[in-house]
């Protein structure tokens, strides 16, 4: 079952490492343990792993730092977090960093194995280097979607809030997600789709790492925002509603951001840039080109 899958468990509590190792070894996995994030990084510089289980709260190098390091240096390694408090905020942070799943502490051997099997399947099944649009989503994401659905289920008029929350989790609303929501809310996929297609807030296409929004409100129009838009299109070779080939940037236009005092306005992710002109574009884009 475990074949040659290599797993590294990182936790500052020896008992966690001990119990994980015992459980996973019994299934034939190749398991090692590290007592700190620092040790884990040193170890991983030497040798790759298929899967890393890590605690979040650790002295010196904490879990989030470790995850960032892995994403940069060992992008093919799958990550599962072990956490005592899977609160919404930490989960969101971790999801954004691209974890596969989490194991709540304390856990039973059955839970650990269940999560491990799924994570291994995910790691082995995924296309290696190429960044493809996933038609399947990591189990943690699906759990989050289901949690949102359960929270709103039976409450009249909840379709829009559920779609908003799910878009936050996944980043966009592909058909699979819409179907799951429809089923969960006892609606037809057509009904859900009719809402998604009506409101401009919802998108069915994945966005880039950085989403550029150009305001097309009146004040921005009068201040010739069009020239800014054209410059961006030209520089990134990108049309409105599309994503660059390297999936770094996506471009959208919006109808007034209500920041008319700063017209023309451009927003990248959550950062607002006012008094824009075509000359400012290259410099700002450069700032983001280096970021993840």
């Amino acid at each position, binding site marked *: 079952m475990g074949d040659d899958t290599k797993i590294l468990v990182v936790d500052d509590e020896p008992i966690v490492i001990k119990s994980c190792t015992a459980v996973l070894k019994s299934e034939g996995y190749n398991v090692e343990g590290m007592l700190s994030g620092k040790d884990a990084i040193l170890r991983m510089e030497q040798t790759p792993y298929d899967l890393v289980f890590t605690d979040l709260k650790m002295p010196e190098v904490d879990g989030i730092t470790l995850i960032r390091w892995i994403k940069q240096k060992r992008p093919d390694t799958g990550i599962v977090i072990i956490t005592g408090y899977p609160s919404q905020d930490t989960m969101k942070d971790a999801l954004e960093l691209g974890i596969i799943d989490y194991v709540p502490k304390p856990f039973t051997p059955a839970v650990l194995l269940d999560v491990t099997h799924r994570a291994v399947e995910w790691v082995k099944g995924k296309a290696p280097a190429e960044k493809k649009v996933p038609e399947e989503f990591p189990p943690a994401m699906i759990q989050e979607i289901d949690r949102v659905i359960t929270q709103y289920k039976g409450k*009249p*008029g*909840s*379709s*829009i*809030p559920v*779609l*908003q929350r799910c878009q936050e989790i996944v980043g966009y609303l592909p058909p699979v997600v819409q179907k799951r929501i429809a089923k969960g809310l006892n609606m037809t996929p057509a009904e859900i789709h*009719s*809402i998604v297609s*009506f*409101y*401009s*807030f*919802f998108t069915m296409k994945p966005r880039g790492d950085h989403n550029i929004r150009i305001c*097309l*409100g*009146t*004040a921005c*129009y*009068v*201040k010739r925002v069009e020239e800014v838009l054209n410059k961006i299109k030209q520089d990134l070779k990108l049309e409105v509603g599309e994503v660059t080939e390297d999936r770094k940037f996506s471009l959208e236009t*919006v*109808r*007034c*951001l*209500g*920041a*008319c*005092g*700063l*017209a023309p*306005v451009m927003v990248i992710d959550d950062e*607002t*840039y*006012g008094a824009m002109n075509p000359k400012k574009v290259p410099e700002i884009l450069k700032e983001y080109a280096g970021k993840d």
Partner: protein
Amino acid sequence: MEGKIRANLLMCAGTGCVASGTPKVKAALQEELQKRGLADEIKIVLTGCNGFCAEGPVMLVYPEGIFYQKLTVDEIPKLVEEHFLKGRPYEKLMFREPEKKTAIPTMNEIPFFKHQVLRVLRNKGLIDPENMDEYIARDGYLAAAKALTEMTQADIIKTVKDSGLRGRGGAGFPTGMKWEFASKSVADQKYMLCNGDEGDPGAFMDRSVMEADPHSVIEGMIIGAKAIGASKGVIYVRAEYPLAVKRLQLAIDKCREAGLLGENILDSGFTFDLEIYLGAGAFVCGEETALMRSIEGKRGMPRPRPPFPAHKGLWDKPSVLNNVETLAQIAPVILHGAEWYKTLGTEKSTGTKVFALTGDIKNVGLVEVPMGIPLRTIIYDIGGGMKNKKKKFKSVQMGGPSGGCIPEILIDIPVTYEDVVKTGAIMGSGGMVVMDEDTCMVSTSKFFLEFTADESCGKCTPCRVGTRVMLDMLTDITEGRGKDGDIETLQDLSRDIISTSLCGLGQTAPNPVLSTIRYFRDEYESHIKDNWCKAGICRKLCSFHIFEDLCKGCGACLRGCPQQAIAGEKKQPHRIIQELCIQCRSCYDTCKFGAIKIGPAGCKDIKAMRELLEKVKEVKG
């Protein structure tokens, strides 16, 4: 334990100032105060939008009332040393009038603020919107207490009716009458709703109120709920306004804690609770029946009226929907009475109105003025005139995609619901976009039609298809394919769309086209007949020429030309090589001497153009 605070620094944390750098400046200020050992006696308060967005980041120093603008991190040490250590207000960061050199130290003397009367924005820039005590200290929730404990439903409705307050969302329907209809409906459940789905491009007053003074909206809703007998309320806010959502939610939570929302409010036996519903970006949801469908989780499409929402609204229960600005006015009306409210404004348009002043104007920002004030005062005295002093005022757009463009000849009209409608525009939610002579009015009306064609929900064919057909025609005109008779066809189509659409979106969509045809017909004609966009905006309909007698040979245009289409020796008149020119107008914008003129498409003969320009001048003169 708080020590003795000797000064409060009210820093604007509205969206405009935040984007201009408030967070960095605040951090630097905090650090500098700490370093100088002043952190215990000088307190920084982050407030909502101050309104003077053009000069951001701004800060008001109390108790002196000194107003600082365009703050930068670099200037902070000097500012702290001068003002807070040596006690000398720092002139360098004060406001100056463009032509005069003297600095204006206090806010109330700055022309931008001097003509304003603050009722809706009574707390703007003065309180920390996330601190309920500061709202209460400024008479907050006194009106709610009065309404809940001393007044009957009929008393409240009578006061609001007598005040003459009209809905600030656009159409100006009397608020008191709306409440009266709903109060007379009998049902087991009624809803009090707030429309914070500000959608008019160019308007941001609702955003500012929700961000700067969320409690004023909630207090208005509590009073309205009592008046109509509603126990549940919903604030519908755009998801694009995350800060407004956060602050409203915080305010609601605080109100619940304080017993101002929930069961048996203030021991009055009245029960009312509120929730926030995030909009998902559809302009048509500003229409009340569409907004209610959206809260029900459906596509936000309008439905025919009657039945009116006052009888059958949200979930088919009697509902009242008021705009943010309307609700923010309720508390003062109840507290000071209808007579007080009517002391400002005109007979039919009472009180004050907030406008979002934007576009080619100097003082961009949020202003609140008494109704009936001349449009000229807003644009020239408060707004400070054109941003580029060399350019002439052309028009002001009011009412967004449902409104129209008011030309210079009408700039002396008093700003009231009635007078604005007479011009072909509407008061709308209060966006005022000022345009100077470099604006092409055909392109402007095309811009608005693009908006409505895009936002039409598709229910009524005349609106869905009609706006598209009109848009195609306008595109043709701006690209040189206009034909004789197009103007008349546009007018005919407009009339049909207006008379056959169900909701406000369709009924008003053609307004921008009609009003620009009414006042700027000559521009349409010169586009169609002469292939000439005189503002040089429609690229296919213009050409650029350097008048030799005006050119100083400074070379600025030559350096800025992306096509190297300009030739000439230093200090000698330059010329444009027409074959290479792509009509990007960068030379036109660069030239300080006005030597570059805009001619019709394909014009090669400057002499002929000169004559043409002279002729135009004569006709206009």
